[in-house]
């Protein structure tokens, strides 16, 4: 096998894992954000948020 194969393979692997990490971070964030919104829609707020509203 040529050397180019190993070079491309290692770059692909590095990109795949890096994008996996980036994807994990973003998907996680979207999920958490949505959950927080759903909770907020249900009327469950953080104490500090409520205090700000009262002010």
């Amino acid at each position: 096998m040529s050397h180019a194969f190993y070079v491309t393979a290692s770059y692909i692997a590095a990109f795949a894992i890096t994008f996996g990490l980036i994807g994990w971070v973003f998907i996680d964030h979207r999920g958490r954000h949505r959950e927080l919104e759903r909770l907020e829609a249900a009327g469950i707020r953080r104490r500090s948020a409520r205090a700000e509203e009262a002010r």
Partner: protein
Amino acid sequence: MSEPSLAIRKFSDLANPTRFLGLVATVWPWLAGLTLCLFAVGLYLSFTTTGDYQQGETVRIMYVHVPAAWLSMMCYTVMALSALGTLVWRHPLADVSAKAAAPIGAGFTLVALITGSLWGKPMWGTWWVWDARLTSVFVLFLMYLGLIALNRAMDDPTRAAKVSAVLILVGFVNIPIIKFSVEWWNTLHQPASVVRMDGPTIDSEFLWPLLVMAIAFSMLFFTLHILAMRNEILRRRIAVLRRHAARSAGGAA
């Protein structure tokens, strides 16, 4: 989060992560942009420089492999500092930081292992050598996985953070010993045939792309780290809110 008894405790429990979230929101696009620019420059440099006369094209693997290996160690250092922060200063963000760093560190270590193995096949003729350096990186990978498993096994995040902080510090003390002992072990068993990647002394042609890529990888780490920390903070908030909701619902019924 435990019941904050003091006003100061309350402040640091609630306000500090909130301020951190605000900071993240303003900082992360810039960091991400910087990372992208650095990666563009670094990748351009690493593909335009001529190949090494000994190693040929495969020298390009170095530009991902070395920064990833470097980061795998830096990430553990960041975790050890965070563990100190958890145990000594009880900083509420420190345990979040340690927990968020573990998967990222494991990822970079995996990149270093895979690219190293892909580099080793054409250079040494084998995918894996029980070389001192390779072995210690592999042990580091195992420790990352153990830490992730420990964090997942516990429900209470603050307790998990404290306990894993102890483990992180024990591991941090142990890593030099492991590295030393692995070197001893390797030289004892196969002194002459150890395949070393000394190669030619790096000249500036390879140094520049390597340096840029290393900085790019570090920036990538910091970007991912603060974003993962934000996710972790949000996750804990959700858990707290859920508990509150359950409690108030239980109280009303």
